[in-house]
């Protein structure tokens, strides 16, 4: 069975690698500047005159779309390009432990960025009295969404030695999951696919699950959805690496 100790060792190395390179700082600064700009300048946080964080959380899926695949693209592609994957996978650990260690490190890394947006909560609390329950639920949903993005990005990173391919495929994968329920996408299927299939595709979308938590509703079904997306992507990463690690 997976050992916490081994997962922990991989996790710590991976997290440290983020902060040892410029990636961490560039990511954090861009993430904070971008969410700040979109919230205050584009969504007109002050002019709305409502002390809630809806305009802030509205942008998260879109900012993640760009930044999460950038943060995950190196997870496996770089290991494969530099040959360290051979070192890593001949250490006394299982592939699952290596994958989980990397996944949790990347997820925590994004989560640190999300948590660093706390001044906006302070701002809203200073200006009015936002419902803190809703704010916490929205943060929780946003972090779960980030985890799903990380899992997709990790899968696409494992597919080739090229980080660029990992990034582009990751972005595409996340975009598809984000928009799966959107009319132009379902419209594409509705003409020829049976009704149940259209509904199944639409139900893969991140959006309805994200929206529910933005309204302060934490439903076990939504959590189960995110956990299954992550589990599925982790499983798929395992299969891809089994087949392609040395190629």
């Amino acid at each position, binding site marked *: 069975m997976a050992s916490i*100790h081994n997962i922990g*060792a991989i996790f710590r190395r991976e997290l440290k*690698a983020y902060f040892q390179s410029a990636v961490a700082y560039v990511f954090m600064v861009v993430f904070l500047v971008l969410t700040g700009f979109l919230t205050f300048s584009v969504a007109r946080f002050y002019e709305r005159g409502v002390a809630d964080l809806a305009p802030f959380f509205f942008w998260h899926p879109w900012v993640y779309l760009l930044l999460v695949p950038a943060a995950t693209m190196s997870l496996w592609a770089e290991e494969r390009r*530099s040959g360290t994957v051979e*070192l890593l996978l*001949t250490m006394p*650990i299982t592939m699952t432990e290596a994958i989980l260690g990397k996944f949790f490190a990347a997820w925590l890394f994004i989560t640190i960025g999300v948590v660093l947006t706390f001044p906006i909560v302070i701002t809203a609390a200073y200006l009015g009295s936002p419902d803190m329950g809703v704010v916490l639920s929205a943060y929780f949903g946003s972090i779960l969404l980030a985890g799903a993005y990380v899992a997709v990005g990790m899968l696409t990173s494992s597919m080739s030695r090229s980080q660029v391919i990992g990034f582009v495929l990751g972005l595409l994968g996340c975009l598809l999951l984000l928009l799966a329920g959107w009319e132009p996408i379902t419209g594409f299927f509705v003409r020829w696919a049976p009704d149940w299939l259209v509904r199944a595709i639409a139900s893969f979308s991140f959006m309805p699950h994200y929206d529910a938590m933005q309204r302060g509703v934490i439903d076990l079904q939504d959590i189960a959805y995110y956990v299954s997306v992550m589990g599925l992507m982790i499983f798929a990463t395992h299969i891809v690496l089994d087949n392609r690690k040395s190629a």
Partner: protein
Amino acid sequence: MLEVDGLTKHFGPIEAVRGVSFQADKGEVLGFLGPNGAGKTTTMRMITGFLPPSAGTARVCGHDVGADPVAVKRCLGYLPENAPAYDSMTVTDFLRFGAGIRGFRGKAGRDRVDETIVTCRLEKVRHQAIGTLSKGYRQRTCFAQAVLHDPPVLIMDEPTDGLDPNQKHLVREMIREMASEKTIIISTHILEEVEAVCDRCVIISNGEIVANGSPDELKAKSPSGTLAETFRMLTLDKEEENNG
């Protein structure tokens, strides 16, 4: 210590390794020779559990690599080709990571790393990022990672490739220092290396073993009594046979 039994690997229609079998005992340094592309690296990758074999198996310290890969990996030290290592980590951090994975925690881990840094002559660069090291230091850092946990079996894929004569000498010296209490396999195509460190060698060509014996026995196979000639005789035949 190490038994390789009928290892075979196909990559699509290409048979990279075909039924390779040999054994190595404690205290033995086995040279694994062959031209480029003969299947040396693929064989080593199967023994270390990195690649699953298409057929056959390898047993290390009594553990079967197919049935219990983690147990096999625990008794192995492996230096892959080109000495891969995490460029952004310092030498000390990299070795501590290795020690952590190998189950040395806290002070035991730090002591282990300090000792290894001394045996592998890495004191001068211990706080340097691996990406900034010269090839010789990089090779030794990866070597250090392989011997850190004092494994009973050590597998090295071209450990002296691309090093200058002084560095080659140093690596061979380190290998000899450890030889008596370990089973060591070194792949190489440098024949002087075989004479310098190996007790026995296995020559592989086109994925098959073509000779297995002590360097002296192999020398005796050629008219002029040199290893180079024996090597050419055994491996060229094979290549011609296969190409035409």
